[in-house]
C-alpha cells in the first residue's frame, strides 16, 4: 500500500462528517490509518443518507410484506405484483438540500435519480409525482424556489418522457430555510423481468455505463446529512447537473440490454456514486470488487481517485455483465451514444480495492463498509400531548361566505394548476385522471389501471406525531380508495430535523409508530422509502413531514370515480357523518390565525370500514362522483367537486347551530359521494346497514356555485376566481 500523501487529521475527519468515535471505529476495522480515498469512501458509506444509522432501528418496525409484495425495502425500489405478470416498481426520494441551494438543478436531478432507481430494476417509468414544501409565501426566497423547483421537475420529467401526474405543494414558515423536494417514480415491469443489484459470479466484468464522471456532486450525500446555516449558498458546487436527454438514452439502452439477457446485476450511481453502487453490488453478492479508475470515463482532466469515488455525476450505471454478451452490450450502448467501459472485475476476496495510475488507493473490507456502519439508538423524548379544542369555543362567523372563499383561495388550498401545467401529464397516452383529483390514474393495459398519490399533513404530525403519522397513511389510502382503487403498498419519504435532538427523535419515533399502526390496520405495507434528516437551518427544524406515496390497483377503468359533479339533481351524500374536530384545521389557521390544538384522531377501524364501503359502491356503479374530505373540510370538498364539473354546483342544508364546524371540521374517514336522486335512499340505508353514518345533505344544482343553508350563497365564478387566482397572482404570471 502506497503511503497516503495526505495526513488524516481530526479536522479532516470532521470535514467528512464523521464523529471521532465513528472514525475510531473505522480505524479499528481496517487496522491502520486510512488513505484519503478510503476516508472519502467511508464518509460516503457511513453518513446518515446512505447508512440510515439513526433511523434503521425504527424503520425495521414497519410492515414490509404482503401477498402482492415482490420486493420490499433494500433494493433500488419496491416491487408489487398487479396480476397478469405485471409488476409495479416504485419509490420516493428526497432532494431537499440541493434544491434549496440550486432549485432547478436540485429538483431536476432529484427526478432523474428516482427515475433511475426505477428503471434500474427493469421497469419503464410510467408516472412521476412530487411532494413539495416551501417556506412562507411572503419569505423573500420562496417565489424563486417555487419557480426553480417546478421548472426543474418539469424540465427533467418532460424531456425524459414520463407523465408527472400528481403531488402536493404546501407553504409554511418552518420550511423557510429548508424546503422539501420529494420525488416519486412509478414504473411498469414484468414480474419475471425484475433486475437486482446483487452480483453473482467471480471474475466477471464490472461495466460502467452512461454519462462521464465529473467533479459535480462530490460530497452530495454528506451534505444531505448536515444541517444548514447561513453559508448554505457556499455549497452550490456540490449540486449535480442533470441531463435528461442522456437519461432518456440510458433508459432505452438499459431496457434493451436487459432484454438481451446480458445483465447479471445492475445498480445506478446515485448518492456517493461509484462508491455506493460498487459496494452494494459486491456486498450483496458476497463478492469483492476490484476497480481500475484509469478506465473510468472522465469529463474533466486530472481527476483523483478520491474525486472519482465521490462524484455524483448523474445518468451513470454500474452493471455486472455476462462476459459472452459483452460485445452485444457495448453495441447497444454505442448506438445510444453512451459511454461503455469495463472498469473492474468481481473477486472472491470480499475486498473493495481501488487502483489508479498504478497505485492502490483503497483496500477495504467490502461487507463491513455496509454492515458495520454505526447504528444508533438515539435518545428521544415523548412529544407533548396537544389539547383538544372544544368546537363550542369557536364562535360562528357572521358570514360564512368570506371564510369559504378565503380558504379556497389560500396558499395551501388553492388550485395547483400553475404547477402541474408545467408538467407534461399526458405523455404515454395513458393518463386517465390528471392532477386535481384525489389520486392520479394511469392505464396499464386494457381495462387495468393504477392509482397513485402522495400525502401527509405536516401540521398534524407536528402537533401529534403519532396521530399525524397514522393520518398520512390513512389519507393516502383514502385518496386511492376515492377513485375506486384497492390500495396495494406505499413508499415513504421521512423528512425530519436533527435526530441528535431528543425532541426531533421523539417526533420520528412516534410518527413511525403511527405509520406502522396504520399500515397494519389498512393492510398497506411499505415497500421502499427514504429518510431525510437534519432538515434544519440555524437550529430551526422543519415541520415533521413523513410523505407517503401510495399505489392502488383499479381492475376496471370503467368504474373509476372522479371528484366532478356529473348531473344536476344528483343527491349529495355525506359518508362518515358531520365532523366536530377543529384543532389544527385550516379554518383555525387561515380564519382565526391559530395553529393549535390536537389534530383529528384517526380511528383506523372506521377508516377501513368506510373506505371499503366507498370502494364497494364505486365498483357497483352506485355513485356518480366521490371526493374524500380532508384539509379545509366539507366546504373545500364541495367547492372542488363543483369546480371540477365546470358548471355545476351544490345546494346543501346544515344544522343552523354550528354550520362553521360542519363546513370546516377535518374529521377523518369521511367522503362526499353523489348518486342519482332515485338511488340516494337505498345508498344511505346500505351505509347504515354496514354501520356507517350517512346522510343526504343536499343536491347537485344546475346553477353552479355553492349554496349553503343557512348562510352562504357563492357563485361558480366567485369560487373559480378564488381557487384559481392565488397561484398565478403569487408567481406574477404574465398572460399566455
Amino acid at each position, binding site marked *: 500500500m502506497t503511503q497516503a500523501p495526505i495526513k488524516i487529521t481530526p479536522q479532516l475527519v470532521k470535514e467528512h462528517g464523521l464523529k471521532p468515535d465513528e472514525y475510531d471505529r473505522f480505524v479499528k476495522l481496517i487496522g491502520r490509518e486510512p488513505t484519503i480515498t478510503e476516508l472519502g469512501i467511508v464518509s460516503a458509506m457511513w453518513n446518515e443518507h446512505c447508512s440510515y444509522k439513526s433511523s434503521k432501528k425504527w424503520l425495521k418496525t414497519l410492515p414490509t410484506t404482503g401477498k402482492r409484495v415482490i420486493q420490499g425495502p433494500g433494493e433500488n425500489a419496491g416491487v408489487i405484483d398487479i396480476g397478469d405478470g405485471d409488476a409495479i416498481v416504485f419509490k420516493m426520494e428526497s432532494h431537499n438540500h440541493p434544491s434549496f441551494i440550486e432549485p432547478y438543478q436540485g429538483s431536476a436531478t432529484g427526478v432523474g435519480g428516482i427515475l433511475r432507481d426505477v428503471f434500474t430494476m427493469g421497469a419503464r417509468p410510467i408516472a412521476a409525482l412530487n411532494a413539495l414544501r416551501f417556506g412562507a409565501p411572503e419569505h423573500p426566497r420562496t417565489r424563486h424556489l417555487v419557480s426553480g423547483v417546478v*421548472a426543474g421537475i*418539469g*424540465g427533467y420529467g*418532460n*424531456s*425524459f*418522457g414520463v407523465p408527472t401526474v400528481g403531488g402536493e405543494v404546501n407553504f409554511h414558515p418552518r420550511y423557510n430555510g429548508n424546503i422539501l423536494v420529494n420525488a416519486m417514480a412509478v414504473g411498469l415491469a414484468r414480474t419475471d423481468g425484475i433486475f437486482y443489484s446483487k452480483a453473482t459470479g467471480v471474475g466477471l466484468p464490472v461495466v460502467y455505463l452512461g454519462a462521464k464522471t465529473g467533479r459535480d456532486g462530490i460530497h452530495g450525500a454528506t451534505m444531505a446529512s448536515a444541517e444548514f446555516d447561513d453559508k448554505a449558498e457556499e455549497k452550490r458546487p456540490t449540486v449535480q447537473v442533470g*441531463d*435528461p*436527454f*442522456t437519461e*432518456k*438514452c440510458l433508459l432505452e439502452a438499459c431496457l434493451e440490454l436487459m432484454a438481451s439477457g446480458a445483465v447479471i446485476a445492475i445498480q445506478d450511481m446515485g448518492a456517493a456514486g461509484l462508491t455506493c453502487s460498487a459496494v452494494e453490488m459486491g456486498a450483496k453478492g458476497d463478492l469483492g470488487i476490484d476497480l481500475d479508475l484509469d478506465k473510468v470515463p472522465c469529463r474533466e482532466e486530472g481527476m483523483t481517485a478520491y474525486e472519482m469515488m465521490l462524484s455524483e455525476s448523474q445518468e451513470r450505471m454500474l452493471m455486472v455483465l455476462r462476459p459472452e454478451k459483452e460485445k452485444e452490450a457495448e453495441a447497444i450502448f454505442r448506438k*445510444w*451514444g453512451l459511454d461503455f467501459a469495463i472498469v473492474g472485475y468481481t473477486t472472491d476476496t470480499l475486498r473493495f480495492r481501488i487502483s489508479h495510475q498504478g497505485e492502490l488507493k483503497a483496500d477495504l473490507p467490502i461487507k463491513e463498509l455496509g454492515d458495520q456502519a454505526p447504528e444508533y439508538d438515539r435518545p428521544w423524548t415523548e412529544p407533548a400531548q396537544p389539547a383538544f379544542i372544544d368546537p363550542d369555543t369557536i364562535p360562528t362567523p357572521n358570514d360564512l361566505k368570506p371564510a369559504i372563499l378565503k380558504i379556497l383561495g389560500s396558499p395551501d388550498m388553492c388550485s395547483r394548476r400553475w404547477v*402541474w*401545467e*408545467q*408538467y*407534461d*401529464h*399526458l*405523455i*404515454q*397516452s*395513458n*393518463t*386517465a385522471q390528471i392532477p386535481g383529483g384525489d389520486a392520479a390514474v394511469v*392505464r396499464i393495459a386494457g381495462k387495468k389501471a393504477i392509482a397513485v398519490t402522495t400525502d401527509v399533513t405536516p401540521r398534524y404530525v407536528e402537533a401529534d406525531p403519532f396521530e399525524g403519522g397514522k393520518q398520512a397513511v390513512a389519507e393516502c389510502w383514502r385518496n386511492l380508495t376515492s377513485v375506486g382503487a384497492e390500495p396495494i403498498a406505499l413508499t415513504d419519504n421521512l423528512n425530519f430535523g436533527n435526530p441528535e435532538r431528543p425532541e426531533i427523535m421523539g417526533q420520528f419515533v412516534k410518527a413511525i409508530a403511527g405509520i406502522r399502526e396504520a399500515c397494519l390496520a389498512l393492510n398497506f405495507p411499505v415497500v421502499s422509502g427514504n429518510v431525510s434528516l437534519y432538515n434544519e437551518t440555524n437550529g430551526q427544524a422543519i415541520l415533521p413531514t413523513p410523505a407517503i406515496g401510495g399505489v392502488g390497483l383499479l381492475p376496471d*377503468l370503467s368504474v373509476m370515480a372522479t371528484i366532478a359533479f356529473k348531473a344536476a339533481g344528483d343527491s349529495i351524500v355525506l359518508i362518515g357523518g358531520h365532523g366536530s374536530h377543529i384543532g389544527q384545521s385550516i379554518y383555525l389557521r387561515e380564519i382565526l390565525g391559530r395553529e393549535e390544538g390536537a389534530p383529528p384522531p384517526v380511528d383506523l377501524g372506521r377508516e377501513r370500514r368506510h373506505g371499503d364501503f366507498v370502494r364497494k359502491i364505486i365498483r357497483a356503479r352506485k355513485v356518480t362522483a366521490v371526493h374524500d374530505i380532508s384539509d379545509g373540510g366539507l366546504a373545500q370538498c364541495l367547492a372542488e367537486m363543483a369546480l371540477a364539473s365546470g358548471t355545476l354546483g351544490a345546494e346543501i342544508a346544515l344544522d343552523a347551530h354550528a354550520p362553521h364546524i360542519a363546513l370546516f371540521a377535518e374529521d377523518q374517514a369521511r367522503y362526499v359521494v353523489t348518486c342519482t336522486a332515485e338511488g340516494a335512499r337505498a345508498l344511505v340505508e346500505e351505509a347504515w346497514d354496514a354501520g356507517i353514518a350517512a346522510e343526504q345533505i343536499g343536491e347537485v344544482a344546475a346553477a353552479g356555485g355553492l349554496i349553503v343553508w343557512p348562510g352562504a350563497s357563492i357563485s361558480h365564478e366567485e369560487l373559480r376566481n378564488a381557487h384559481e387566482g392565488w397561484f398565478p397572482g403569487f408567481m406574477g*404570471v*404574465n*398572460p*399566455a
Partner: protein
Amino acid sequence: MISAVIVFPGINRETDMMQALEATTGTKPVAVWHAETELPPVDLVVVPGGFSYGDYLRCGAIAARSPIMNDVRAKAARGLKILGVCNGFQILTEAGLLPGALIRNAGLRFVCRQVKLRVENTRTFFTNRLNQGDVVRCPIAHGEGNYVCDEETLSSLEGEGRVVFRYVEGNPNGATNDIAGIVNKTGNVIGMMPHPENMIEPLHGATDCRPLFESLLAA
C-alpha cells in the same frame, strides 16, 4: 395506408403516435431509426414529438441534420406526405421543409393543457374529414411553440390558406396570428404544435382528434 415514424435519440412521443396511427388507420407503423439513410416504402412519414437531442443547441436543430432527413427531404420534394408534431414541427422547420420557426413560449414556461383549435383548411391530408371552422379540443405540451416568421411568409401563409390550425379561446404560447399548424406550398408537409395523438379515445377525455387521423385514410 402505411406510415413510418422516425425516432431520434430523445424523442419520447413516438409510442403515443404509433399507437394512435395503428388505432385509427388499422395499420401498424414502421419505426425508423434516425441513423438510417433511406425510408422504407410508405405513404406517410411522421416526425413525432419529444426532445430530440435534449433540445440542446436549438430545438430540432440537431435532428434536422440526421442522416434520415436527407431522404425525408428528397422524398418530400417528390410529394411524400410528411406530418411533424411538436418537436417534429420544430424539426421540419429546421430542416427547411416548413417556413418559420418555433421559439420560447411567450409565458417562458412549459405548458401542458387542453386547448381549442379551429380547423382553417380542410383540403389537407390530415383535415379532409373535418369542416371548415370546426373547433377541436387538443392537448399541447411544449415550452417552445411560439410560431414566428417574417412578414412575407406570414402573408403567403395567410393568403394561400396554409394555416391549417389556429388556437381559439386563448393563445397558449404567443404564436403569431394564433397559428398552431401550417402546411407547405405543395400541400404534402404539415407541422403542428398540439398533440392530436393524445386525444383519440375516451380515456383522453374526448376523441376530437380522431377525424384528423381518419383523414389519412381518405387522402
